[in-house]
């Protein structure tokens, strides 16, 4: 594999990233109906995957973690309502939601950072939080559109990095750090 400086690699990535993103923005509305359209969600998963180098050997872990993230997103979203309906509960709805998130965060992180961390691919908590954030933004609606946008966002990062590596090589180790 040939090598290049970080500056050359970043320049090539910038030039390759733009048309790939353009393709994403064109293709997404063609495959997702208007009722599920959340094209912006791709720009949440994209940097999460970019920041760890968008390696192809990590893609499956990010992809499957996203689906576990939907479960936790809706646990966060709906749990506050369940607690509010408890008899005798006399705390404001916003504080109830905050308390619920405080309680649910512990099993969420323990499950995926400790219990499932080495035995399954469901161990990418940043991607799960990305799913939680986008689900919050849509009020828990449009799950199919979100899943497709998050997946395509990761694919944009993956394809951009792979094409850049193919075009100019990997950045040299001294420059990459």
């Amino acid at each position, binding site marked *: 594999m040939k090598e290049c400086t970080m500056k050359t690699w970043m320049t090539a990535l910038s030039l390759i990233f733009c048309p790939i993103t353009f393709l994403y923005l064109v293709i997404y509305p063609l495959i997702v109906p208007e009722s599920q359209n959340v094209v912006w969600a791709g720009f949440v998963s994209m940097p999460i995957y970019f920041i760890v180098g968008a390696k192809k050997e990590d893609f499956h872990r990010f992809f*499957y973690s996203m*689906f*576990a993230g*939907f*479960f936790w997103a*809706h*646990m966060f979203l*709906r749990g506050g309502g369940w607690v509010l309906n408890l008899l005798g509960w006399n705390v404001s709805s916003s504080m109830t939601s905050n308390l619920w998130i405080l309680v649910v965060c512990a099993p969420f992180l323990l499950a995926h950072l400790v219990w*499932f961390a*080495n*035995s*399954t*691919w*469901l161990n990418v908590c940043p991607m799960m939080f990305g799913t939680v954030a986008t689900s919050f933004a849509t009020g*828990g609606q449009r*799950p*199919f559109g979100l*899943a497709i946008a998050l997946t395509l966002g990761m694919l944009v990062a993956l394809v951009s990095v792979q094409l850049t590596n193919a075009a100019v090589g990997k950045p040299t180790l001294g420059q990459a750090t």
Partner: protein
Amino acid sequence: MSVGKKTGLWLIPFGVAEMFLINLYFGIFVAALGLVVFIFAKK
């Protein structure tokens, strides 16, 4: 059991929970994905 098979196995209960929490069809999709991963992942 391999990491892939365990991932598939765990996606099934996540999918079943999502049937009730999110949307029946989305939950079925996730559970089916888990089943496919469980069946086709390397031993």
